[in-house]
């Protein structure tokens, strides 16, 4: 058991190191000089320019050899220091990310959990009722095949532009400041519904189809037939089938996380939602390498941790993996 956990965690650590290294390397080996870009945007006087260049080079740590930059990067990382933003100099990248993160989490976490929950429930129901199967299934296929950005644009067009039921962009009204008040909460929810729906619906379709197919398979499995032969009520047979069908769905959840995060980024951009997605767009437009690097690092770490948690949780819910571990250890 512990050996298994150790092995799992090691794999994740290695993945993390590789991902971080790539994340470090990409902006440094990308064409274009970030400092020149910054200076040209500041429209500095030519005589000041040289001085500024050396100042920024030092400030961003570009004045030491690459290997040292790499080590410094790791050292800073462990202190939670991701460097300074170039566009918003001298605001630390971490601060910008922390400002945007709550908005992204507010979209992502409910979208992932609710779509998983609702998709599985509805998929399981669809497998039992013909009418539901004939409506939910085609709808789910359409939903899951729709890119989140597309759905986001359609939702914005129909419910925001045409029907004017919801605001088109932002996370709260212009006149408001983030605070703990009923007014802010209401405005926040109002802005939240459309981007959330775009993420939720696409994921929901996928889970519903998956569960519907899996549960039909489980209901035809030998153990289901045996239970029914012993007169077990449909309730029990379905409960077992549902539980067992949920296991591959949980593995699927781990695999889908990356895609959902990517979806959240584009949906935020569609709705100008002030989360990590919009921050990424701004960072890319402004070649703010440290910011891009910091956001990616954050997303990678988040997805990896979530995967690790699911992996470990899986061991506790599927006895078959446990037995396999004993055999292998």
């Amino acid at each position, binding site marked *: 058991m512990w050996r298994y956990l150790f092995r799992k965690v090691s794999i994740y650590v290695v993945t993390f190191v590789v991902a971080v290294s790539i994340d470090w390397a990409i902006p440094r080996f990308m064409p274009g000089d970030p400092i020149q870009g910054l200076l040209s945007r500041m429209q500095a006087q030519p005589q000041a320019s040289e001085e500024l260049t050396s100042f920024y080079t030092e400030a961003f740590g570009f004045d030491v050899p690459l290997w040292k930059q790499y080590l410094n990067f790791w050292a800073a990382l462990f202190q939670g220091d991701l460097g300074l933003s170039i566009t918003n100099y001298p605001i630390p990248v971490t601060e910008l990310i922390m400002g945007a993160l709550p908005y992204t989490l507010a979209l992502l976490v409910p979208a992932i959990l609710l779509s998983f929950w609702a998709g599985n429930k509805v998929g399981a129901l669809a497998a039992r009722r013909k009418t539901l199967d004939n409506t939910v299934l085609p709808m789910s296929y359409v939903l899951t095949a729709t890119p989140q950005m597309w759905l986001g644009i359609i939702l914005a067009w129909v419910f925001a532009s045409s029907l004017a039921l919801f605001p088109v962009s932002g996370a709260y009204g212009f006149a408001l400041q983030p605070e703990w008040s009923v007014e802010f909460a209401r405005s926040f929810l109002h802005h939240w519904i459309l981007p959330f729906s775009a993420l939720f619906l696409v994921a929901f379709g996928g889970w519903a189809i998956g569960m519907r197919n899996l549960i039909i398979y489980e209901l035809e*499995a*030998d*153990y289901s*037939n*045996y*239970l*029914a*032969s*012993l*007169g*077990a*009520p449909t*309730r*029990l047979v379905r409960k*077992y089938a549902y*539980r*067992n069908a949920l*296991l591959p769905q949980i593995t699927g959840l781990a695999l889908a996380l990356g895609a959902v995060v990517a979806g959240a980024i584009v949906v935020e951009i569609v709705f100008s939602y002030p989360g990590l997605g919009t921050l990424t767009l701004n960072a890319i437009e402004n070649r703010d390498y440290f910011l891009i690097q910091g956001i990616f690092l954050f997303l990678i770490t988040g997805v990896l941790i979530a995967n690790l948690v699911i992996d470990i949780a899986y061991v506790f*819910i*599927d*006895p*078959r993996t446990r*037995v396999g571990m004993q055999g292998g250890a």
Partner: protein
Amino acid sequence: MSLKVDGLTVYYQSLRGDVKAVDGATFEIADGEIMGLAGESGCGKSTLGKSLVRMDARMRYVDGRVELDGKELPVWDDRKMNPYRFKHVSIIPQYALSALNPTRKIGTMATELLASRDIPLNGVVDEFKRRLKIVGLPEDVLERFPIELSGGMKQRVVMVLSSLLDPSLLIADEVTSALDVSTQRAVSELLVEFRDRGFVKSMIVITHDLSVLYQIADTILVMYAGKLAEKAPAETVVHAPAHPYTRMLISSLPEVGVRYAEKRLIGIPGRPPSLLEPPTGCRFKTRCPLAFEKCAEEPPFVEVAPGQAAACWKATA
């Protein structure tokens, strides 16, 4: 009479038409009788066994009546049949090795099943443990997952569970086929012990292995291509079979005590007919060395000697 089956006809629905897997089965089983059910693969043994307990989604009840202990079994009505299952008629399925939910401990599964049938747990769980001991399993299998048991152990768990509520009739489908020879012997002897201890009143033992039946069965029913061919006491079937098909089955055994499963293709030339379009008249006529004009008509399944019934014009003549 414990079980009375009259004209039971069950088809499978398939895209190419009805598979006539059990056609007009009529037989009786006495209290305490262990009836062996034999015949080539695909002749409808499992279908007959399953239709007495639960028809699966593709099976279609066509005709016939079943009576257990003098009461009609509503085999055609899945819902009405439910109260009888497990309590009065129970089955050890052919797929016993995969019959247990892989993600539930044996004990948990059993108690959830019993609770779902509104059966008070207190006495039954102790009885379950006691019977596990009888079949040679440690009590702690209740705490294990199916994957932690060997094939033979799973087979026994299913055996004990299926018969836990002392049903009148237990159908044991190929309980020995997946096991090695010594385990086979132990498991088949356990079946007899279950009957002797009164855990089950009577039994249908389905198997490929005639030698197993010879050891444990009181009577043997031979099926051919969805039809009953012959039913008689085990001794009679082995030493004085009336139906040409039974005779060929027996003579294809080098000696009693050797499995015929591996030998049957050598023993009986030709293949069993398709059950989609079975031959009219006697279904065995395409392979029968004794076939004559009359065999174009269907031979009735009738008594040919005291206690011996067969469906063959030659046997009645």
